[in-house]
């Protein structure tokens, strides 16, 4: 399997003051790197879901998850392998779009399946929600037109659905 240098952790935490600070503090203190971070409420207001993309070159993933799990407010950690999860990210970008460029930008946005969300005299604000690699490509292709401002959300992810019967899959469990 391909070795990814980034790995996505989906972390269920108690919705309490300072939880994010505890997680960020832990990463800083132990020298782990966060690549991106997204926080959102869950359907149960007692918990929040944090999606952290970690740099597994900075420390072994196992050590990161074990240290993270020691935080009292961390309830559950799921490791989402990019190969077996759906990962999405949203980008908003304000692009320099005077008359002569406007049509090609609109075409690019349509090809990617994005949206024009705001139109100004000489600028366009565009949006795309897609896999992180698509978003990277989109951003790179917009670059030549002149990106005025860009904002990315960081990725969110869920494990892929089972496509075969669970009984037939080989189960590799973690010990201890």
């Amino acid at each position, binding site marked *: 399997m391909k070795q990814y240098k980034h790995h996505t952790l989906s972390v269920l*935490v*108690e919705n309490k*003051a*300072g939880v994010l*600070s*505890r997680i960020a*503090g*832990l990463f800083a*203190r132990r020298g782990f790197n966060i690549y991106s971070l997204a926080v959102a409420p869950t359907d149960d207001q007692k918990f929040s879901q944090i999606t952290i993309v970690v740099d597994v070159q900075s420390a*072994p993933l*196992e*050590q990161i998850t*074990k*240290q993270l*799990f*020691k*935080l*009292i*407010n*961390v*309830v559950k950690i799921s490791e989402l392998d990019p190969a077996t999860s759906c990962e999405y990210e949203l980008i908003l970008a304000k692009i320099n779009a005077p008359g002569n460029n406007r049509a090609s930008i609109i075409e690019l946005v349509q090809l990617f399946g994005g949206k024009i969300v705001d139109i100004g005299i000489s600028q366009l604000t565009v949006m795309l929600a897609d896999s992180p690699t698509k978003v990277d490509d989109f951003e790179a292709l917009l670059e030549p037109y002149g990106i005025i401002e860009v904002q990315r959300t960081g990725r969110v992810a869920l494990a892929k659905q089972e496509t075969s019967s669970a009984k037939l899959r080989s189960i590799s469990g973690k*010990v*201890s």
Partner: protein
Amino acid sequence: MELTGAQALIKSLEAQGVEVIFGIPGGAILPVYDPLIDSPLRHILVRHEQGAGHMAEGYAHVSGRPGVAMVTSGPAATNIVTALADAYMDSIPMVCITGQVALGSIGTDAFQEADTTGITMSVTKHNWLVTSAQDIPRIIKEAFHVATTGRPGPVLVDIPKDVSNQLMQWYWPDEVDMPGYKPTVKGHPKMIKQAAKLILEAKKPVIYAGGGIIRAGASDQLKTLAELISSPVATTLMGRGCFPDEHELAMGMPGMHGTYTAVTAIQKADLLIALGVRFDDRVTGKISSFAPNAKVIHVDIDPAELGKVRHPEVPIVGDVGYVLTELIKEIKNLEKKQDQSDKSAWLKQIKDWQIRFPLTYDKEQTKVIKPQFVVETLSANTPEDTIVVSGVGQHQMFATQYWKFNRPNQWVNSGGLGTMGFAIPAAIGAKVANPSAMVWAIDGDGCFQMTAQELVTASSEKIPIKVAILNNAYLGMVRQWQEMFYEERYSEVYLSPDLPDYVKWAEAMGCVGFRVESPDEVAIVIEKANAINDRPVVIDFRTDSSEKVYPMVPSGASNDDIVVDPSQGQGGM
């Protein structure tokens, strides 16, 4: 029943079975000190908040119960951070209660405001900022639960002044509801089986036992295991006393200043049975050459310790006492089918190292007092159940090397953080936990000057601890490194033997002070000190400034490059 938050706090501490609080009042914690007057809880008024923290640690070390410290906001909270960090490193259960400015003032840079929960986040197992008096009983229950279960550690509860004054309806929760906190206690049976198999096959096993054995109260199981498999045992700085030094399988301490035998046996072992230890850098030396031929069985209650430093062939998460009991059963089962490997050659080799490279110093010397001689004389002239407390530096190493420890909870020191000034307040806490035992603090002159004012606390509270200052007029360990690794260029390490005058200082603090300047007086003055039970005693032992701690593995070097006492030749392997 309607109570104020402050009353609820005191009542919660009582409900939790607390018997003593080490603390000092101030602005934001004032409301809590009022109901304390009417409570049976004992309060010991310290002279500095760091002292309160170390006293709570000393208390916890000896009793196994969580120590409780209570101080006010701002500078008081920052003063106790060192003790929290110390307890965190050494896994000491401790509950610290701090006052905080009123809820509405938080974030306004109010008088004596500090972001206490923010500051202490990385040095506590968990902390809480209380925002409603109604939460106090629940949070106190949670705090003690977190501090004492799993891998023990310090916790902090920060209570704003207005929350202490708020009214609440009293209740005491039956249990805690913490969905993210469920420590694993039982080891995995499959892993325990694998461990038993490796143990039976091993020809050169070493048990590497640490503070986890003491925290888990697993000394009996450790002894049973060691005898069952005839394995020599090394006890780490935090684990001293968890296996009796007088036992024939005892090798003493491993690591930078460990015994030659313990260090070398680990290097040559084919199996390392690591129990309640964390492969600290002071034990492993250069990690890539640590125990290069050994398979590792690592038992710890903290999953994050397994594989953090050294990959274990058999990782077992669980309470080391529980795991050892299961492991012993499993080994006995397996022995019915399979014999243990013959270990006589290994044990003979160990004995040979012990004879060739014992701990040693110049014992013939009659003019100056050798610090090791003071420790040996103390060890020989004090009751069997004496509790020994030390600070950090050369004196700490001499104390752990030359005292014969035979029981757990007998040795109290700052291992991981290496906090100078730990000894005096920790000894006070230890004596409070076990008033019938004699408590000797073995301290350095540098350490003593950092927290000596707590002897005022000891005198006024009638806590008769005894202090042996190994006064070599230097920051001795720093001096040793400058001598050995900085071409004897001594930079800012000289303290003077006479300034301060330790005897006068002791007397000014309500203690009895003695000075000892020649070896033949050592035992005599120790006897005098032992006879004093109504106040603290301080002895200023004038020791040899040039004495160094041996053996020594130079920082960053391989344990194979151990340097022994010069009288024993080159050492090494």
